[in-house]
């Protein structure tokens, strides 16, 4: 059963009105003990599976799928673009999230406030709006300056993906920074004091104890955050990046079919999400991160 684990973001919010904490749901809610895993072959499951198989059969039989071979290659390219967007923005976003989260816990006010404002603003406005602001708003301002138009950056700024990349990275950084803030704050004082007692300098202590322990604590939430990020990627199709969503939009327009391409798209995303969740499960089993 993947249901409980796909994405628990809303359930993990803390009392501050929407910000996240991690690994603490057990403190708010007693741990949910799932009923004993039931076999897949119970009678009612067999019945449900039969109904499901019938539905799939109907979908294949009564709907039009003849366009599929023609677009197969483009779909694969689209999926690749989606995954590229997902992983590049998640990794770069995470690298930004660490310092942004840290300065909110320990930094001077001069840094903590801008970081706090950054998180509030990004998390308080829709990603779609941020994307269009960057692409159409900022893009049209860039175009007014001949210096930018003649610079070496222009060939990149002309394209759409840098804006999509920037918007998704910023968004991931803001959400994950909130997680990292909680993670840094949640590392037990005693461990830091012990490090100091060993005579570690501030930087050594940060590098050897604080950062690794915080990342350790934040890892379980990465799963949910990455799934959310995957679900945000189709928005870049609205600024002409050709991801899998854009390919399917194209199929819809070419074939005038309403449901079939969208159903296929939903199926593709379900598979991608399932793959992500499975991959994270695999890694989580290898790194014991569950309880810090």
């Amino acid at each position: 059963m993947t249901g409980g684990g796909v994405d628990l973001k809303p359930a993990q919010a803390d009392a501050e009105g929407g910000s996240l904490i991690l690994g603490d749901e057990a403190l708010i809610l007693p741990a949910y003990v799932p009923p004993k895993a039931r076999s897949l072959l119970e009678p009612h499951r067999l019945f449900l599976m039969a109904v499901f198989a019938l539905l799939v059969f109907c979908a294949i039989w009564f709907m039009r799928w003849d366009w599929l071979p023609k677009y197969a290659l483009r779909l694969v390219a689209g999926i690749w673009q989606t995954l590229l967007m997902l992983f590049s923005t998640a990794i770069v976003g995470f690298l930004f999230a660490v310092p942004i989260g840290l300065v909110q816990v320990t930094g001077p006010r001069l840094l903590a406030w801008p970081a706090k404002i950054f998180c509030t603003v990004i998390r308080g406005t829709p990603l779609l709006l941020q994307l269009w602001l960057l692409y159409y708003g900022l893009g049209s301002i860039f175009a007014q300056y001949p210096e930018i138009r003649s610079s070496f950056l222009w060939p990149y700024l002309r394209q759409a993906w840098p804006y999509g990349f920037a918007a998704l990275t910023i968004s991931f950084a803001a959400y994950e920074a909130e997680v990292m803030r909680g993670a840094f704050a949640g590392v037990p004082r005693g461990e830091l004091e012990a490090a100091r007692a060993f005579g570690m300098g501030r930087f050594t202590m940060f590098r050897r104890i604080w950062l690794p322990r915080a990342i350790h604590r934040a890892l379980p939430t990465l799963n949910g955050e990455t799934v959310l990020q995957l679900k945000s990627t189709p928005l870049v199709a609205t600024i002409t990046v050709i991801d899998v969503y854009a390919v399917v939009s194209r199929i819809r327009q070419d074939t005038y079919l309403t449901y079939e391409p969208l159903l296929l798209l939903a199926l593709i995303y379900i598979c991608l999400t399932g793959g992500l969740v499975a991959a994270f499960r695999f890694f989580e089993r290898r790194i014991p991160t569950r309880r810090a």
Partner: protein
Amino acid sequence: MDGLFPTLQLLSLTPPGWGGALIAGLVASLELAVGGYVLGLVIGIAAAFGKLYGGPILRDLMEIYTTLVRAVPELVLILLLYYAGTDAVNQLLALLSMPAVDISGLAAGIFVIGVVQGAYSTEVLRGAILAVSPGQIEAARAYGMSPFQVMRRVTLPAMLPHALPGLANLWMIATKDTALLAVVGFSELTLTTRQAAGTTKAYMTFYLAAGVLYLAVTLVSNLVIAVIERRAKRGTPPLGATS
């Protein structure tokens, strides 16, 4: 376009300024968010109770619903449900040989947001219901209350403090998800902004203005949520070490 100053008058509340149109868009967004959120809560309560106390088939169906909705991007769900929802209602009515109804864009939008929100609130509420100590529910039953009375008088009020943080987060998500309806052409804040920006070519001005409006909604919501949480937590022992 030369800088931001000359375009600021475009935001005035009366035409030729677009401020009024933006406010109307904001109202439409809020209608969608409130409607979708409440519908999501109704679905969530029903599905959470179904998941916890329903028969095996109901449980599995609820599990499928929450898993599928949370695995597919909201944008794709919105496209599917926006067309399929209306279509399904009308075909059902046709089967019953009843005349087709017109489903307004607002109703379709609320339905879409509600179905998406429902899956998330199911999980939030299920966790919160589980946090109510079984003794309270058993006591209510011992008093001879019907299951519905138990739900209304004991389970729902007792789980609220546990559910509030999650529900607050969901409200934030609901307000931001309404922006996705711009993609199907529903005239809420983001689409109105896009139209205003396209007509006047003052892209930066309008997108920033819309951003300020969304941010204002978030900040005001945060204040209201803080007040509600303080009220709801009165008299309850501190939950765990952190809160």
